[in-house]
């Protein structure tokens, strides 16, 4: 078995070297991959371009393969344009919601996406990164660095717990995406390595126990809207961390707790479509309808 990574260890190293977590991660990862730092950053920027394109695809108002989702990203776009003064959460988070839905819908309708960390949770990172970068006027380089921070966080979660709904429930999939996005947000806003860790811990704590219960087994309901929820959780946690709020439970321990909760979770709640919303009367009805279509 591979050795468990520790986010605290990386954070401490970055703090000791007096580096931002992004600068530390890019150096560390480039060395690990035997890759030039510039090349690594370019690869991340390619990913960002794909993400931007996924948003465009989603906002055309497409319908998913299973027909259960589609057009909601566009609805938020229209609402933002027509009723900005009525926004409950304000412009930045409203944009994050729009992007999360758009990318989730692009994914569900066979659009091109970056699995980050998975296809089902692919809306969360673009939502947080692009809404914040617009608000802050971040450069592509800064966004690339934030994405590397997100990736490093994901690596730690993968090594101590899991990134897949089938193994750890939705907390491992959308929860991890949110934690990665929260860390990236702190980096983008110039927070310290320590604050990156706090944001990750706070996000995962707030999403602990979330089950994976896709209706008809498709990456549509509730996955797409959960990406919007995950993006919001990431932003809430980043705000707290930047304000200097600390998680009482240290970040690596929170990740371990998520692993334990995932292990304790019934198999019916881990992507098998045998529990939760998947077996609600409407969920069953929809599944039967979709399967009937297949049989015919």
């Amino acid at each position, binding site marked *: 078995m591979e050795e468990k990574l520790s986010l605290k260890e990386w954070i401490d190293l970055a703090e000791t070297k007096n580096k931002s977590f992004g600068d530390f991660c890019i150096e560390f990862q480039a060395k690990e991959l035997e890759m030039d730092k510039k090349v690594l950053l370019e690869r991340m920027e390619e990913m960002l371009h794909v993400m931007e394109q996924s948003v465009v695809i989603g906002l055309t108002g497409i319908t*998913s393969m299973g027909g259960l989702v589609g057009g909601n990203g566009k609805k938020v776009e229209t609402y933002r344009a027509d009723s900005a003064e009525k926004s409950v959460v304000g412009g930045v988070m409203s944009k994050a919601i729009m992007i999360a839905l758009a990318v989730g819908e692009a994914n569900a309708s066979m659009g091109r996406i970056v699995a980050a960390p998975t296809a089902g949770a692919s809306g969360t990172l673009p939502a947080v990164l692009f809404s914040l970068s617009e608000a802050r006027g971040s450069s592509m380089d800064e966004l690339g660095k934030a994405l590397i921070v997100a990736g490093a966080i*994901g690596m730690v979660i993968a090594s101590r717990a899991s990134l897949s709904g*089938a193994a750890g429930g939705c907390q491992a999939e959308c929860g991890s995406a949110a934690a990665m996005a929260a860390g990236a947000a702190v980096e983008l806003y110039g927070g310290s390595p320590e604050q990156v860790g706090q944001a990750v811990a706070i996000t995962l704590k707030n999403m602990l126990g979330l089950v994976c219960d896709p209706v008809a087994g498709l990456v549509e309901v509730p996955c797409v809207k959960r990406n919007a929820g995950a993006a919001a959780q990431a932003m809430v946690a980043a705000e707290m961390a930047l304000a200097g709020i600390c998680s009482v439970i240290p970040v690596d321990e929170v990740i371990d707790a998520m692993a334990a909760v995932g292990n304790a979770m019934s198999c019916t709640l881990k992507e098998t479509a045998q529990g939760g919303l998947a077996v609600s009367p409407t969920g069953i009805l929809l599944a039967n309808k979709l399967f009937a279509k297949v049989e015919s």
Partner: protein
Amino acid sequence: MNIFDVIGPVMIGPSSSHTAGAVRLGNLALAILGEGVKEAMIGLHGSFAQTYRGHGTDLALSAGLQGWATDDSRIPKSFDSAKEAEIEISFKTINLGDLSHPNSVRFWMTGVNGNKCTVTGASIGGGRVVVTNIDDFPVEFSGDFPAILTMHRDRPGAIALVTSILSTQGVNVAQMKVFRKQKGGLAAMIVETDQPIDDAAFEVIGKLPHIQSVRRIQLV
């Protein structure tokens, strides 16, 4: 695991197992057939059979048989392209038994040169796949490495001859497995290697004694 396993891959949605994995299984089946596909019947088992439409698994398998990558934007239109290329692809629901992985698929293929081949595999999560059976031989390989597949007579030295050719070419064996139906009968061998196997080595292996056929399986 590296950072590109977390941020990436770039893929066509919606599911790494039911879409990206399905493309890869198609890619592997095509590589095993060793020539362009003319006709393919594709059997879907378990979760693949139940949810294939909602995940575009059928489109992904057809894309894979045409040699496309998991991030190819044409995947949603792979049926149209198959039709244009006069590749006949059909689907049916199959039951491979309870012991089979829920995301299993079987391809019955005929190539453009008339060769036939049956390949069974499964998508085991995160876009990773495994081929479990070729032409009634139980096998096991992932396509993560370049590989050769031999059908040969189960005779002393048959295996050593193949590996010695590889060693003279500086090709290191990563994993290998040998399967046989009965002692002294027809056997199959999968050799997964760290380096690609070049044309010269491939041709020499095909002419070795006891070797009935050899296929090279190299995904881009």
